């Protein structure tokens, strides 16, 4: 058996090493990059992970914990980076490459890619959310979208004029993204002292928590709530926004090209993510993908050069054009084709939003934090003034493994 497989490996020697890259689902852009970045020394092939970010984490951890050497590269969602690094699944990025990536990437992207002062994934693309609105709808209202808007104003404008506000509020990671953004927008944090791991201080029960809960409660109890609010995700939000009742939506950058030739695409306006409280800058969600190299890979140096190629600003721009997922570097944004598709205003808004974006708590325990939020804040119609307090108790116990998640 061993002989056979080594013989096979020897046969394959001509075309070099095979690097296996586990990607999150997209429209095929990562597969194209894999081909583009393959060299005479190695060929990159892709395997697609499930759609749900939590499921991606689960699939990868199960294989990595089994000491699987068949994974070389992986596309990681930022909130799980710390956990992977802490568990020792990620190879350290060599100093030279780390320096290069630090120089080219947005600060937020670098922060999200760093655990315990070491860059553990390479920022590949950076995602953020903006407030999308239907121009025809906003004309009917007295909302001034040229000025920063608050959640309260957006919900009221939709409610009074028969429109819907599309968000992500299914019981899944996307809902935690929304809640975190509401917290950060009120100047709060979900958790402090994250370096304490499970002993971190839970700060959900705070004025920011009350502000966040008020927004969720207001939307859920208003006529602006879509019928599928409690099961809504990025995709259903696009459908709601595109329907006749569509008015506002918070969603990622891909929305701009999501409607294709549909007349709706001509009716889309955009502005900065809504503020949680009047007078305080909003904190748009941070998303995207970092590239990690499996610590157990047998071809680490090849994998690192592949990472360098994939994350080059030109390839980030190539990928952005292909997938609608925006670059993690200012240089990547500097692309004529991207400008043509999105327009300078929107690209500026994206960049500005990424720079102001608040990452989800960088902690190996993020999945516990996220699940605690999902357990206590779902369904949105159950959220009220009590929610932050209950949520804080729940989360503290969950972090101590004294609670079932």
């Amino acid at each position, binding site marked *: 058996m061993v002989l056979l497989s080594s013989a096979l490996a020897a046969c394959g020697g001509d075309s070099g090493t095979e690097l296996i890259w586990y990607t999150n689902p997209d429209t095929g852009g990562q597969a194209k990059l894999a081909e583009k970045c393959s060299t005479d020394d190695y060929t990159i092939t892709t395997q697609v992970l499930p759609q749900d970010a*939590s499921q991606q984490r*689960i699939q990868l*951890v*199960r294989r990595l*914990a089994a000491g699987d050497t068949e994974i070389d590269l992986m596309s990681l969602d930022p909130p799980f980076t710390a*956990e*992977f690094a*802490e*568990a020792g699944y990620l190879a350290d990025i060599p100093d030279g490459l780390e320096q290069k990536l630090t120089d080219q990437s947005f600060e937020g992207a670098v922060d999200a890619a760093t655990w315990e002062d070491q860059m553990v994934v390479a920022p590949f693309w950076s995602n953020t959310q903006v407030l999308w609105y239907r121009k025809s709808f906003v004309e009917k209202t007295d909302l001034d979208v040229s000025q920063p808007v608050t959640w309260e104003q957006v919900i009221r404008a939709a409610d009074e004029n028969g429109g819907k506000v599309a968000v992500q509020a*299914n*019981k*899944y990671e996307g809902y935690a993204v929304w809640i975190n953004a509401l917290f950060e927008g009120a100047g709060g944090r979900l958790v402090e002292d994250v370096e304490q791991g499970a002993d971190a201080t839970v700060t959900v029960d705070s004025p920011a928590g009350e502000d966040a809960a008020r927004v969720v409660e207001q939307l859920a109890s208003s006529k602006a709530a879509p*019928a*599928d*609010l*409690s*099961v809504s995700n990025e995709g259903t939000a696009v*459908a709601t926004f595109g329907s006749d009742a569509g008015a506002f939506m918070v969603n990622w950058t891909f929305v701009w090209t999501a409607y294709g030739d549909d007349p709706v695409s001509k009716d889309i306006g955009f502005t900065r993510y809504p503020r949680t409280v009047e007078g305080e800058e909003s904190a748009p969600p941070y998303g995207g993908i970092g590239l990690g190299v499996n610590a157990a890979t047998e071809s680490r140096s090849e994998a690192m050069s592949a990472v360098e190629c994939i994350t080059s600003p030109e390839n980030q721009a190539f990928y952005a054009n292909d997938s609608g997922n925006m670059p993690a570097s200012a240089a990547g944004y500097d692309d004529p084709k991207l400008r043509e598709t999105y327009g300078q205003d929107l690209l500026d808004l994206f960049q500005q939003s990424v720079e102001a974006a608040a990452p989800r708590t960088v902690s*190996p325990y993020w*999945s*516990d934090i996220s*699940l605690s939020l999902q*357990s206590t804040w*779902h*369904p949105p119609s159950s959220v009220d003034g009590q929610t932050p307090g209950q949520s804080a108790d729940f989360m503290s116990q969950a972090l101590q*493994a*004294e*609670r*079932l*998640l």
Partner: protein
Amino acid sequence: MSTAVSPDQRSTTRKTGRQARSPSTERSRAENRLGLKLVAPAVVLMLLVTAYPMLQALYLSLFRYRLTNPDDRQFIGFDNYVTALSDQLFWQDLWNTVVIMVVTVAVELVIGFAFAMVMHRVIFARGVIRTSILIPYGIITVVSAFAWQFAFSLNNGFVNGWFSWLPWIAADTNWFGDHWHAMFAIMVSEIWKTTPFMALLLLAGLSQVSEDMIEAAKVDGATWWQRLWKVILPNMRAAIMVAVLFRALDAFRIFDNIFVMTKGAQETESSSFLTYRQVIEQFQLGMGSALSVLLFLSVLVLAYGIVKLFRVDLSQARGEG
């Protein structure tokens, strides 16, 4: 029914059995050895995949052990059990599981019996009916879950459109948006797929009820309802109990439908799903093992309860004299 063992055949088997049991003859010892050799592979395999892992679960359940943080593994005695049993989620999920079990089995029993009556009485197209009824039985549960999830879907389902004349269904009823609607959808999928199994078991029982007895009751002036309750059902008791036992234990393990349809949202999680999530999604091997043990114990209690309650003699019922 081709497999119905006639009593005389059974008694011959018994007789041979008794003859062979005459003590310590060379022949019976050889037979004993051969018997053990023949059953050994199956028994070893069954135990290898159940008993040994169960013992390992028992051991792991005494630890705090998270796969992504193996260095933190720590012996904590029965703390996992205390945490689980004092957690509201555990009881909520157990309650959901019991609700699903009781409702689905009860509904299946009624509909399955009606189907069995029809199949028993029908004199045309018996092959067609049997083939049709085997389709839900044979279909993958995941497919059934998808079919019903899509049928109940807000944007792509026909249920809201077809049934919006009912007072509690509107054109925009979000079936997966709240607890009871979602539970209803899950139970519909479960009931749809497993009623045929129930119907076939009951049909087999029904065919054992002597027509003469029913005729006699009819001559005595018993109404249809009386015949059903006084003659037919009592004579099918064994078949009904076996069907209930197996379906109940099966329903208690419900997982596939919930995984596909709601992923446990809207508090539709079952005990199996909770256990799965702790182990496979959260890598809490310690807590997950404790829940595995608790799940195993619940099934034992349930099986014991049903057997005692209904006085089912399984060895007899399954024909293993």
